[in-house]
């Protein structure tokens, strides 16, 4: 974890409202892992005030030893509109890597199950990063079968040109591209039987639905939550998510954002967005 000013290497549009930001990474901060995140201060003005969290979508080390980190984001509010206008060469205040990510390749290999990677909307970034990390670790070869990626979008216009791995199943609510229906429709109706191991990131209702499905099918599952947060380092207690039974909370920023299937009451996640 490090706070530093990162130079913007790219900030291109992937689809209307979707952008990819690539930053020159400071190696002293450490290598990010899929599911971990960074926070950005998009402007030194007082409004918007707070840093914004974004999950890593890519990380590359160049032959010269320099490294690059990418995020995918949707332009949805004040802060992301400012971010969208930042040009190559500009600097942005970065804090990261933060949080606990998805199980690493060694753990998945030990489990011997087949990775099932599910993304909804802006949850695509960390899922593509996870797919790339599993590919690099040659997990598909040693696991029960190649990783399957299932990604859901509203319609074909909302699908970013983000370099999906071959074999990715895209789902659209209106059927304008790929499978017609939600990722949950696909998983519950079309997924071939197998020794699946679910890893997912997306909106709260999607996570609640896939957590329920994972329990019903007895899949191990790791789910990456989204929650408003102020500090990102475990101090403010703002990003609380309820545990089942409601007696306590876990912090998305340091206890997660990736949690086990039964760690969080996904149906009552409340405020996840």
């Amino acid at each position, binding site marked *: *974890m*490090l*706070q530093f000013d990162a130079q913007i290497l790219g900030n291109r549009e992937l689809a209307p409202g979707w952008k990819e930001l690539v930053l020159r990474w400071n190696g002293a901060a450490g290598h990010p892992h899929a599911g971990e995140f960074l926070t950005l*201060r998009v402007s030194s003005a*007082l*409004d*918007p*005030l*707070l*840093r914004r969290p974004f999950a890593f979508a890519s990380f590359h080390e160049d032959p010269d030893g320099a490294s690059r980190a990418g995020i995918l984001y949707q332009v949805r509010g004040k802060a992301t509109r400012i971010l969208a206008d930042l040009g190559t060469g500009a600097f942005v*205040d970065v*804090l990261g890597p933060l949080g606990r990510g998805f199980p690493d390749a060694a753990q998945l290999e030990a489990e011997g199950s087949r990775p099932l990677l599910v993304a909804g909307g802006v949850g695509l970034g960390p899922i593509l990063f996870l797919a790339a990390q599993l590919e690099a670790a040659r997990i598909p070869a040693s696991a029960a079968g190649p990783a399957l990626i299932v990604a859901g979008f509203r319609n074909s216009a909302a699908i970013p040109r983000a370099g999906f791995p071959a074999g990715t199943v895209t789902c659209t609510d209106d059927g304008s591209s790929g499978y017609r229906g939600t990722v949950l429709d696909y998983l519950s109706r079309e997924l071939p039987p197998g020794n699946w191991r679910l890893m997912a990131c997306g909106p709260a209702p999607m996570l609640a639905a896939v957590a329920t499905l994972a329990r019903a099918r007895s899949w191990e599952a790791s789910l990456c939550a989204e*929650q*408003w*947060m*102020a*500090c990102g*380092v*475990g*101090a*403010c*207690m*703002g*990003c*609380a*998510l*309820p545990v089942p039974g409601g*007696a*306590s*909370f876990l912090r998305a920023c*340091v206890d997660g954002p990736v949690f086990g299937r039964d760690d969080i009451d996904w149906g009552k*996640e*409340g*405020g*996840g967005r």
Partner: protein
Amino acid sequence: MNIDPRVRIGPLVLSNPVGVASGTFGYGAEYEGLMDLGRLGAIYTKAVTLEARAGNDAPRIVETPAGMLNSIGLANPGLEAFVARKLPELRRLSTSVIVNVAGSSEADYLRVVEALEEAAGPWSPRSGAGGATGQEGATGVDGYEINVSCPNVAHGGLAFGTDPAQVERLTRSLRAATRRALIVKLTPNVADIVPIAKAAEAGGADAISCINTLVGMVIDTRTKRPALARGTGGLSGPAIRPVGVACVWKASRAVGIPVIGLGGIMCADDALQYLLAGASAVQVGTATFVDPRAALKTLEGILAWMEGEGLAGIGDIGALFGRS
């Protein structure tokens, strides 16, 4: 000119006037990798209550124009876990530690302070004097900040802080329990902060800190419901700074004990407004979320400004108020 940045709060000498506010800095360890904690004047911990508190339902925070609204609900591991897990970490820090204490009743506050006195052991000015903590003699508790101003709990909190008689009685009973610095944190959610400030002084407080957050609400017009699960929350950030400066200006003229100013300090200029208004020290809160190094940058800016003004001590700043 040599600047002496130290500040005296009752028996305690802080190494400099800039601390980090309760609720924004955890118990210190959260930010340890991001800055040199030893350069802070003080760490005001997240509130400690007698029993563990899970806190309020989510969502707990929402951003507002130049501010944020929170309803955390004093989430904390409780006295026992604080003593077992946090106190040993705090003892290692080379900065003054002020433990923020909250409760639902007078007895709650007293039991927390008594238990911390017992756990931390005897305190002498030497163990707390600027720079001596974190070394031999550090107890992990150099003082208490009594939170009678949390707007986000059903019992206690704000209910105490708006009644001068209750503030005086509570302060007096805690005063009898400790020789450590005793600071009472006041709410701006009153018609006049002066009677409350005077009550804390009469009860034997070494200082008052003001202000805690202002009660506010954000409504999501899409869902027609409050953005926070609990409805209202406490407003913090630069939007409330003028309210805090006015409270400090009023309170510091009404009491003889030091006033610690907080509320929306983002930079040295903001902190200097508080010091000019009569504060003896300041706390940086929400700004730490925005920039973890905000408190340290604020300190550097204050010292640079003092050098430019030819001032030797923090106490000289307030004397300049009203002069050009």
